[in-house]
């Protein structure tokens, strides 16, 4: 792959980041809401300071956050701070920065996402491939059908149903949170098991919620590959069914799925954010939820930007790795 192509993709990535930050800059400023005023009005309701003082405080903070400057100047300094990974300061958890809040929550989200995404990709593609493989037994082939329905169901809803049946009715697994109530997490075995127990339902709902799409697209892919000459040739050579399945059929059908994987990353993050809310798990999603509830705008915009940049970078990364998987594509 040529250097030019790599640079081109990186340029595209910069363009996407620019677009996302421009959107998160301008949309809030189009609205009539003033985060600082709202925050202080909220404080004024609970504590007592006079309306005149309030105006002075708001003016002072507007100057501090730079909201009183001309729009273009604000835009320039906003872009500058993004380039320095400075996403601003939380209005509600002042003086914590948005970056700190995200970094505290990130390990949780990454842990959950990594496991569920990989598992659903592997299981989903295997099931799909088996469902399309003409020599697999009938019951295995029929197994893919329910996924047509499942594909439309967001993981959150699966989460609610699982919470009801397994958490509430059968009382097998906890109803939410990251630890049992009252447990102080430590680096020991029981703490780890407790943590694992709390992650099972979220993980299962995320895996099954995103598996349907893989099963169906892989089944579609598999059917197209069956008619290919090289599969016929391998069969006539007398290779065993397993070898054909593994080396001729699965490997080739899997290639477009890798591209699909890159495209699905946005959905994956979205599902995780919403699932964290339903299972009251710590993570980037719950930080976002708290921010929405508390009208903490800086955090909302910071998280949106952070996830967008992550997803876009991962997409470009997959695209750059792709030629290594498929030698036919030499950019």
């Amino acid at each position, binding site marked *: 792959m040529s250097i030019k192509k790599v640079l081109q993709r990186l340029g595209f990535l910069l*363009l*996407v980041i620019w*677009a*996302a930050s421009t*959107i*998160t800059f301008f*949309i*809030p400023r*189009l*609205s*009539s*809401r003033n985060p600082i005023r709202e925050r202080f009005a909220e404080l004024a309701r609970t504590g007592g300071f006079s309306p005149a003082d309030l105006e002075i405080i708001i003016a002072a903070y507007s100057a501090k956050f730079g909201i009183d400057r001309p729009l273009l100047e604000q835009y320039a300094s906003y872009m500058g701070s993004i380039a320095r990974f400075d996403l601003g300061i939380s209005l509600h958890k002042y003086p914590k920065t948005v970056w700190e809040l995200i970094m505290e929550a990130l390990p949780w989200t990454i842990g959950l996402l990594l496991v569920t995404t990989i598992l659903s990709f592997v299981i989903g593609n295997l099931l799909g491939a088996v469902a*399309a493989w003409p020599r697999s037994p009938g019951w295995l082939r029929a197994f893919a059908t329910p996924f*047509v*329905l*499942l*594909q*439309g*169901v*967001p993981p*959150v*809803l699966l989460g*609610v*149903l699982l*919470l*009801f049946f397994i*958490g*509430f*009715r059968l009382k097998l697994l906890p*109803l*939410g949170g990251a630890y049992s109530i009252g447990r102080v997490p430590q680096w020991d075995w029981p703490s780890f098991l407790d943590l694992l127990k709390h992650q099972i339902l979220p993980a299962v709902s995320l895996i099954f919620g995103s598996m349907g799409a893989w099963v169906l697209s892989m*089944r*579609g892919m598999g*059917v*197209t590959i069956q008619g290919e000459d090289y599969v016929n040739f391998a069969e006539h050579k007398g290779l065993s069914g397993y070898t054909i399945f593994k080396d001729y059929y699965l490997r080739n059908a899997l290639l477009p799925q890798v591209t699909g994987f890159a*495209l699905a990353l*946005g*959905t994956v*993050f*979205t599902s995780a*954010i*919403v699932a964290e*809310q*339903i299972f*009251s798990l710590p993570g980037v999603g719950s930080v*976002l*939820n708290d921010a*929405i*509830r508390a009208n903490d*705008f800086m955090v*909302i*915009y910071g*998280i*949106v930007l952070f*996830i*967008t940049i992550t*997803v*876009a970078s991962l*997409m*470009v990364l997959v695209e750059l790795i792709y030629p290594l998987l498929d030698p036919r594509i030499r950019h």
Partner: protein
Amino acid sequence: MATIAFPQPEVRQPSRATLVLRYLRRNKSLSVGLLILLFLVAFTVIGLLTINPKEAYPLAVRAKQPPSVTYPFGTDFFGRNLYAAMVIGMWQTALIGVLAGGLGTLIGVVLGFTSAYFGGILDATVKGICQILTPIPIFLIQVVIAGSIDRRSVTIYTMALIVVLLAWMGPTLVIRSQVLSMKERQFVSVAKLSGVGDMGIIFGEILPNLLPFIAASFVTQVFVSVYASFYLAVVGLGPLREPLLGNIIWGAQLQGAFFNGWWWWPITPAVAMVLILGSLALVNMGLDELANPRVRRSE
């Protein structure tokens, strides 16, 4: 010699209804999806005729009652009759879906047609915008928009608008690619040579051929809109007063419904939403097969 009169075999073309029924029997996902949708519509229509709409809003009935004869789905923490709330919520979900889906498809058709047919700068712009926006998770941008609006002024219609704002890209790209391939076909060239104008070709030649695609992308769009508005409502960015299904689940989660034993509160909207989205996905898949026979190979 007596001539044998053979009974004339009568060839009868089966009626349209029979043909449709036969097709539905073959296209299982379409028929199952339509059946579930029909059931949901019946539930909503019958519900709208029987409920007192006031009971779908807070402080209307006794709070926290489990399902019973008077309250088939129970009542919630805020004193809403969940049956009434479900009926109104389904109706509002359908409204958002059809409004946002219709608008999104309309924008998609207009943009897709003009950019693909006329090409040039317009096409480059539309394609460029779609390319740049593709890696950005749409839901997050919707969160920014919905979060910037004063929560008290959010209505069902603003929800639909927020969803449409970013959801026109899908249908635009689908229609665009179809028009691009369609305008190179021979019948279009023939029409062009016979002196048919641009409008005549668009409306007389290409559009009629694309109707199945437009129908399919409408259903996709309804699905996407319902999905998006549900997600926004679940994280608490919906019109908080309305009994939108996502809002009910959000409220239940906020009050710790399962921890407190009020299991009926989140479960009914969740099941309803599974049915709505599942049936739309099925219909979507069925229509895909109808519009694009090549997909049939994968059955």
